[in-house]
């Protein structure tokens, strides 16, 4: 459950959030590579803040599965590992399909208009944007208004986004485009179950196969 952030945020909180967002973007975009070691001192210098907000931000990223912290040993960007990725995509897919099913009857005319406007030639971008607050997913999550589902998706989508960005071949994402179109068409037509099935297919039949493009961790790497 989100901690209420009513009232003015403390300066410390703002600094931590700033560090957090900088690191989050760098990890999701691949500027910090999977498996890369992270040194507190370097981050402190890079962002220009002290150790405490850096540790807090790293803890937050660790809770999202993006950073691994071995106390007294090392901190690194979590490597992308095929099994975990498959499990993550299945889990996120279940939540997305549920949200699509239950938000479809609630869509407003404005939402349907927005959904119709989503079209992209580039498969990788279409999937990445689609599965974000700016894409079709955002329309459904906002309209359902379930803050708990929203929080879980916010927490787990960055790990999905990072894999979508890092995937070496866009072939699995090409396969995703028809499912996205089917999902949007069904939702706009008010067919909730059909839209949910398309959301399920989007994950189970296309996106999940990106997990095959990543390896399993070697003993040495752990």
């Amino acid at each position, binding site marked *: *459950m989100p*901690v*209420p*952030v009513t*009232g003015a945020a*403390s300066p*410390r*909180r703002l600094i931590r959030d700033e560090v957090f967002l900088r690191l989050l973007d760098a990890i999701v975009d691949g500027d910090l590579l999977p498996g890369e070691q992270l040194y507190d001192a370097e981050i402190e210098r890079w962002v220009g803040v002290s150790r405490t907000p850096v540790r807090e931000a790293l*803890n937050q990223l*660790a*809770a*999202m*599965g993006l950073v*691994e*912290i*071995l*106390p*007294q*040993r090392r901190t690194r960007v*979590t490597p992308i*590992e095929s099994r*975990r990725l498959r*499990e*993550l995509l*299945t*889990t996120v897919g*279940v*939540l997305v*399909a*549920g949200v699509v099913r*239950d938000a479809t009857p609630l869509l*407003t005319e404005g939402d349907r208009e927005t959904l119709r406007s989503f079209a992209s030639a580039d498969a990788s971008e279409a999937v990445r944007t689609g599965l974000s*607050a700016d894409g079709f997913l*955002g329309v459904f*999550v*906002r*309209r*359902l*208004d*379930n*803050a*708990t*589902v*929203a929080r*879980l*998706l*916010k*927490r*787990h989508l960055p790990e999905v986004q990072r894999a979508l960005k890092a995937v070496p071949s866009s072939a699995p994402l090409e396969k995703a485009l028809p499912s996205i179109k089917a999902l949007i068409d069904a939702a706009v037509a008010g067919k909730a179950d059909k839209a949910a099935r398309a959301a399920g297919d989007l994950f189970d039949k296309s996106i999940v196969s990106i997990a095959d493009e990543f390896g399993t961790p070697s003993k040495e790497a*752990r």
Partner: protein
Amino acid sequence: MPLPVSDTAPVERRLLRDVVYNRLYEGILDGTLEPGETLLDEKLTAWLGVSRTPIREALMKLADIGLVEMAPNRYTRVAPIDLKAIDEAIYTTGLLHEHAARANVPELENAVVTRLDKAQKEVKKAAKARDLPALGRAFNDFFLELTRAGGNDVLASVSDGLSPQLLRYISVWETPFGIDDLPGALAGILAAAKDRDGAKAGDLVKELYAGTLTQFLEDYRRRDADITKTPVF
């Protein structure tokens, strides 16, 4: 949510943190620590006899699953009972449990079926005795078994992270599940599990949780104007 390596903290510190976490977790769920109660570091260090660090770590973990609220420099307290948050969490749990039923029931091992059977009997016993904490635990165990059977650690841990809300809900007990309906509902799911009928089990789980969405739409979902003003996502 657990990291693959989250349990590699030095043993002593990890144990302390886990001990503190478990004490606080139990204390919150059984009502020793009351909803809304302020948690002061000094009082907790005195009560539990450990230093500040494991307590802060445990509190952060509890904040993560919604049992504690932390506002930096303002307060740390037991999260008040929030029926909306509970309803939302149970709805979300329902999505995961329905998937677990559909995906895992067809391949269920006999040992898992035996444990489901045991949990269902516990639910029945606890419902009859009106023992709500026991009922909550047994209900939770039933779905924990079903969820873990598929070997998807991410799904199981997301579902686990929501279960305290389910347990708290049972402590305040309002609709949408009736105490007397639960044993029967779980008996139906168990029968489908014994037949390895994933579709049937999934439909029954969906039906069991359907009330949470209805209640959310009736009581908790905001008006479209407010949704636009302060979106959740």
